[in-house]
């Protein structure tokens, strides 16, 4: 009962039946959002507003019937929802404006797993770690939940009211002083809204910002072709690839199809074997997979590229005019030898040649690559119009905007870009400039650094709870459909923009549908359903063009590049982070605990430097140093990184966060913004390093990097394939034994992992975490070697050169030994063998003696040292896969070969009275793997792919001599070195 004091005595207009009803908050409406901030706790019921195929949505409070916004499942399902059976929906994740088609699993209305959409050109069924982690970001309890106005909780309708007033004033001034700072976007709907906003406010300006822009790619195309283009890679036709700082084999936005194509080129069974050269500063995933790798200081990479162009000038008539570049850019002997060999190899490869340049490199190098690819007639690089609305989304534009802001020319600023205050180079001082804007609106998932300075902060809707569209990396129009009604009162980008058009009451769904109806009116109702079910509109990729190369401009730009070395000083090298990208994923524990694919560091970034440089500077692993570049120092921890170029230090973006709302990532690692400058955002000489005399303990999941001469991750070359096969014959199959073998008459599950295909991108690890409810344990526990990943990706350095070693990666999870050492040492029979050969773990029976782990030669078992899941909030718990037990403290766990997926297939096929077919059960890691390195199936099926791989000459069993008879077989990695560089 509310007290009578709280009741207004006069001016009463509302009818009420009881004091409770009177005092209760007004019912929320879908259009205006709740009037008061909702409570922190979200009950299961409130989010179980099942969308699915059922027609009506539950109403929110009887005030307004929510609009009918039908989402459509990917495959045809019965019209009703069967509890316990998941549904799949096609949607997309958009990172820096490019969409990756996804297939999201929903259990009883809550999304639980993100997988790739097999039909979507940007995914082809694969998915990277970032896209998968969107799930946990969606359920993040630290997300911003209510609209904030000047730091105080407010409501969406208050914002709408204020914006309506503002908009009226702005219309009078024709939008002078109105600026939009947007996420790089390819969304046709956003494009349409921008056009309409531009019409309503002719003097308003739009710009885009991301910390990882593609601007130099576009600038390079501008130089080479006279117009902005981007390159569509087609590695399926590649024979010789040169990567100039281009990380095309890491599972990052836009690279998934490239990885699949490349994997096919690295399988000896597929005939012609491709070759990869990498020229880069820090060891990247692509560098780990290169046959030859040249490590150069960052400012030398483009000079190397131009020198290469000069060499090609002597070999290719079409490039003859570039021959002088060879003299202009002299190379040291090692680089010269490398360049000579690469030049010859590229020419020999002809249409199979490809020079790929990373987005951090200056435009002239991109232009040079266009010249080379065009002259060699490369079939692997096609120019196409950019999919983004703004080709320039880097510090240059942001600088102009900040200048205007400081000059008082900006009166209203709408930011939908991710966190420019954090991501902008420090010399831009964007945060201060933002504080000077009188009316600023920031739409964000979290209360981050930018939210701290914006007057209005609107909680963003996560893509899993909102409607939208975007283009894939090749331009294919892709749809985003919500899997669940919004967890919190947020707004999508469309709604935020529409507020300035006075359309705050139109839902994004209405906008989207109306837009596409106007675009493609023919047979719309039918098509719309198909598009949503498929997730994209087939055949909408932007066509490749063949613009003419402007050789003269390229040559003159190349001749303007200073040939001289910038000196012997240290250089800084800033790179995107494999786990948190530019920092937007920093609050996602799945990614924080994902070891960096190269350094195996978790929960922070570090200052990476070569062993030689470390010796020279007197630094050891774990030393704390101050890095300085024309500004205040960044406090970093040293990690010695074999394969790194000498005299350079690499740091990744996305750490050193200070946002108020992001408790998980706050103060992890260090912020690189003071090392970035508007003119040199990626690399620059003049770096200073000062040890501060302290040490830090890193949480690295792998601390020993040599195989100690053991046969662990086997590697060979194309030439030696035959011999290696014969040698490996000793390391596969049964050992001599007196015991009668066990018979497996039914299914005999097994796996094959092709090390030749695996790039080490670690997407499989995130898939495993999501599928199997694996808890994240935090930095301290990882430092104590207690991480819980069932699947790990080991990375070994090979060869004698610690400066530039060879690298081999090896995913390792439980290999399901037929004679499992873990089983006979369990005193309580908690780990036993199934009649299909699975090594099963019975959590309920486990008392946790840990002997099974001690006796496991692969050390793939994981122990719940604490109750790692007990502090999960109810929201986070919604991400759990209901088919997998959440393990208690004191219990051992490990890879199950995704037994829950086997059982689901068994149920389905038993109803149909047939055996499970090959490919019907995909383990989570296999499903996510962009390069098809993991294959699972029934070894009793002679036609199964896994059976064929088990019979390959490259196959071997890990630790074969122990007689464990693992069901997971490995296929030796094959490299294709150039004899000239041997």
């Amino acid at each position: 009962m509310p007290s009578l004091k709280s009741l207004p005595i006069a001016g009463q207009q509302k009818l009420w039946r009881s004091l409770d009803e009177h005092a209760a908050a007004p019912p929320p409406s879908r259009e205006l959002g709740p009037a008061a901030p909702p409570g922190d706790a979200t009950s299961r019921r409130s989010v179980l507003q099942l969308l699915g195929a059922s027609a009506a949505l539950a109403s929110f409070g009887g005030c307004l019937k929510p609009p009918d916004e039908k989402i459509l499942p990917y495959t045809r399902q019965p019209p009703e929802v069967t509890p316990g059976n998941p549904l799949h929906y096609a949607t997309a994740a958009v990172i820096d404006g490019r969409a990756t088609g996804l297939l999201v699993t929903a259990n009883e209305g809550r999304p639980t797993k993100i997988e790739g959409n097999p039909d979507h050109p940007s995914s082809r069924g694969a998915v990277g770690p970032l896209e998968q982690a969107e799930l946990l970001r969606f359920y993040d309890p630290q997300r911003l939940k209510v609209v904030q106005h000047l730091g105080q909780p407010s409501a969406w309708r208050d914002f709408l009211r204020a914006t309506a007033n503002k908009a009226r004033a702005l219309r009078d001034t024709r939008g002078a002083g109105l600026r939009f700072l947007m996420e790089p976007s390819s969304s046709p709907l956003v494009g349409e809204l921008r056009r309409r906003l531009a019409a309503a406010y002719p003097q308003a300006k739009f710009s885009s910002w991301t910390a990882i822009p593609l601007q130099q790619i576009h600038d390079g195309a501008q130089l080479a072709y006279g117009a902005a283009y981007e390159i569509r890679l087609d590695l399926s036709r590649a024979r010789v690839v040169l990567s100039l700082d281009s990380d095309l084999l890491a599972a990052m936005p836009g690279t998934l199809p490239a990885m699949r194509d490349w994997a096919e080129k690295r399988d000896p069974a597929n005939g012609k074997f491709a070759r990869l050269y990498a020229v880069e500063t820090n060891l990247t995933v692509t560098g780990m997979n290169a046959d030859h790798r040249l490590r150069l200081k960052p400012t030398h990479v483009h000079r190397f590229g131009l020198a290469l162009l000069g060499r090609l000038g002597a070999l290719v008539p079409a490039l003859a005019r570039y021959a002088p570049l060879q003299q202009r850019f002299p190379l040291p002997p090692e680089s010269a030898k490398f360049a000579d060999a690469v030049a010859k190899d590229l020419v020999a490869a002809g249409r199979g040649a490809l020079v790929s340049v990373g987005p951090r490199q200056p435009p002239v190098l991109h232009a040079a690559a266009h010249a080379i690819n065009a002259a060699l007639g490369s079939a692997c690089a096609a120019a196409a119009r950019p999919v983004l609305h703004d080709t320039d989304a880097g510090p240059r534009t942001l600088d102009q905007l900040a200048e205007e802001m400081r000059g008082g020319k900006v009166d209203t600023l709408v930011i939908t870009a991710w966190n420019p205050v954090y991501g902008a180079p420090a010399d831009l001082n964007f945060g201060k400039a933002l504080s000077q804007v009188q009316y600023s609106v920031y739409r964000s998932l979290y209360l981050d650094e930018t939210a701290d300075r914006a007057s209005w902060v609107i909680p963003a809707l996560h893509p899993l709870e909102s409607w939208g569209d975007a283009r894939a990396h090749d331009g294919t129009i892709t749809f985003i459909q919500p899997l669940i009604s919004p967890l919190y009162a947020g707004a999508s980008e469309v709604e935020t923009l529409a507020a300035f058009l006075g359309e705050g009451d139109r839902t994004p769904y209405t906008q989207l549908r109306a837009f596409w109806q106007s675009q493609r009116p023919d047979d719309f109702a039918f098509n719309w359903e198909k598009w949503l079910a498929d997730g994209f509109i087939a055949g909408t990729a932007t066509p490749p063009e063949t613009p003419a190369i402007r050789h003269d401009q390229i040559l003159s730009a190349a001749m303007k590049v200073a040939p001289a070395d910038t000196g012997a000083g240290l250089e800084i090298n800033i790179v995107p982070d494999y786990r948190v990208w530019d920092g937007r994923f920093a609050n996602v524990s799945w990614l924080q605990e994902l070891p960096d694919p190269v350094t195996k560091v978790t929960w922070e970034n570090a200052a990476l430097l070569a062993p030689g440089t470390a010796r020279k500077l007197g630094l050891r692993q774990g030393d704390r140093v101050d890095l300085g570049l024309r500004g205040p120092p960044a406090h970093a921890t040293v990690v010695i990184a074999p394969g790194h170029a000498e005299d350079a230090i690499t740091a990744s973006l996305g750490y050193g966060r200070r946002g108020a709302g992001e408790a998980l990532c706050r103060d992890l690692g260090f912020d690189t913004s003071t090392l970035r400058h508007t003119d040199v955002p990626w690399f620059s000489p003049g770096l200073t390093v000062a040890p501060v005399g302290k040490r830090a303990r890193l949480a690295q999941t792998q601390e020993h990097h040599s195989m100690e001469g053991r046969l662990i991750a086997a590697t060979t070359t194309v030439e030696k394939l035959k011999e290696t096969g014969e040698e490996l014959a000793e390391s596969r199959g049964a050992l001599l034994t007196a015991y009668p073998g066990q018979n497996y008459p039914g299914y005999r599950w097994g796996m094959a992992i092709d090390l030749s295909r695996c790039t080490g991108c670690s997407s499989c690890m995130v898939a495993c975490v999501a599928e199997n409810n694996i808890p994240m344990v935090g930095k301290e526990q990882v430092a104590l070697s207690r991480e819980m990943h069932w699947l790990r990706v080991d990375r070994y350095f090979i060869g004698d050169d610690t400066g530039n070693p060879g690298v081999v990666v090896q995913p390792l999870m439980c290999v399901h030994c037929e004679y499992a050492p873990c089983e006979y040492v369990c005193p309580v029979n908690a780990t036993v063998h199934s009649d299909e050969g699975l090594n099963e773990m019975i959590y309920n029976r486990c008392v946790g003696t840990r002997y099974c782990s001690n006796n496991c030669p692969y050390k793939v078992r994981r122990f719940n040292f604490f109750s790692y899941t007990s502090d999960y909030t109810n929201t986070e718990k919604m991400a759990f896969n209901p088919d997998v037990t959440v393990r208690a403290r004191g219990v051992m766990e490990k890879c199950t070969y995704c037994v829950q997926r086997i059982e689901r297939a068994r149920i389905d096929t038993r109803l149909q009275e047939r055996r499970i077919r090959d490919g019907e059960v995909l383990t989570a890691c296999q499903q996510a793997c962009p390069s098809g390195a993991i294959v699972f199936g029934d070894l009793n099926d002679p036609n199964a792919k896994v059976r064929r791989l088990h019979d390959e000459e490259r196959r071997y069993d890990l630790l074969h001599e122990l007689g464990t008879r693992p069901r997971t077989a490995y296929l030796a990695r094959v490299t294709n070195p150039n004899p000239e560089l041997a």
Partner: protein
Amino acid sequence: MAETAIALPPPLVPLPLIEGSQDDGTLNKTLNAYVWQPPQRGWLALFLIGLAGTGVLFSGITITVAKGIGMWGNNIPVGWAFGIINFVWWIGIGHAGTLISAILLLFQQKWRTSINRFAEAMTLFAVMQAGLFPILHTGRPWFAVYWLFPYPSTNSIWPQFKRPLMWDVFAVSTYFITSLLFWYLGLIPDLASLRDSSSSKRARIAYGIFALGWRGSARHWHHYKIAYLLLAGLATPLVLSVHTIVSWDFALSILPGWHTTIFPPYFVAGAVFSGFAMVMTLMIPARRYMKLKHVITARHLESMAKVMLLTGLIVFYGYLMEHFAAWYSGNVYEEHVFFSTRPRGPYAWAYFTQMFCNVVVPQMFWTRWARRNIWTLWIGSVLVNVGMWFERFNIVVTSLHQDFIPSNWAMYYPTWVDFSLLFGTICFFGTLFLVFLKFIPAVATSEVKELNHELHEGAGMSELEGARP
């Protein structure tokens, strides 16, 4: 002949087992005196320290059970560490009691008489410490407490009989029960003697209950002797079996450094080694403060030093053989453990501590001087106990932290909870021992009296023999 016997050099003349001229009365008085004295200040001080340390132990246990094994330093790959090290160490210490009581009895070694009670009590208390760890080191002790025992549960799941830790449960519990019975049986005549000499009624009733109505009749003695001999026969195989089975906990695995056929004899020898060292460590101060020097003489200490020297050499042989087998096998994993990880790895300091304490230190007992010097004996025995602890550290932690696949190699660092459990069990052990010293004669009075008679008779016999023409 007699002249040659007299001309024998003094070292071969054994020192007396009982010093001075004693009779039943003096022995009764001196050996039981400590029980009737009011607690001395030193005893009280040690007892309070022990109690405080026991408090630390139970805090450690509480926090382990409440929060999880994560409070320890264990990780993956080092799944076992202090818990199992302490278990094996305490079980090993618990070996001397049965050996002294049973095997030396069967071999009719007279010098066992004055120290067997002491050693048996130590065995019981050590096994009690050891018994804490197998349960405590599990992730879910509340289930491990009974799931390890075979009982017909409704879901018909039995323990895994193939697994040595399962056998451990039987071996250790059998050993404890047998040792307890053996100790108690030996106590009965002394309890009766205490009952009879007690001055307060309370003590008389208390000792009377435990004396089980012993009256010292010939019939009683007859049955008593048979029972004692039978239990000795029963306990003898246990001396070998318990630590053999404990060694199988390791030897039956496939881990390099554990998977070794030499483990059973080497573990048994190591156990006796450490057990004697612990008896020595405790006995040297006790005999001084409890004024027992006349029955626990230099002869006893010297005999124990000899046993330590012998078992120490067997242990050394074990070390050599492990390394030899690793080299001879040509197995890279074995070679890595014995030639890289242990002597040159990050835990090399533990390896060399072990080698110094267990191999170098006992060599001083080749000299009579060291065997008869209280300080060398005491320091030597303490070092052997330290060395044996580190031996188990090397077996458990050093083998685990670098095994087959280098990517999973990791270091292990103990936490304060680990140390509190080790320290706490030492205190708990000490507390129990102090209680034992206070309430029960630390020396088997009846047996010493019997020995005294035997010696005098024996002396008489030899005099007679010497007089024979």
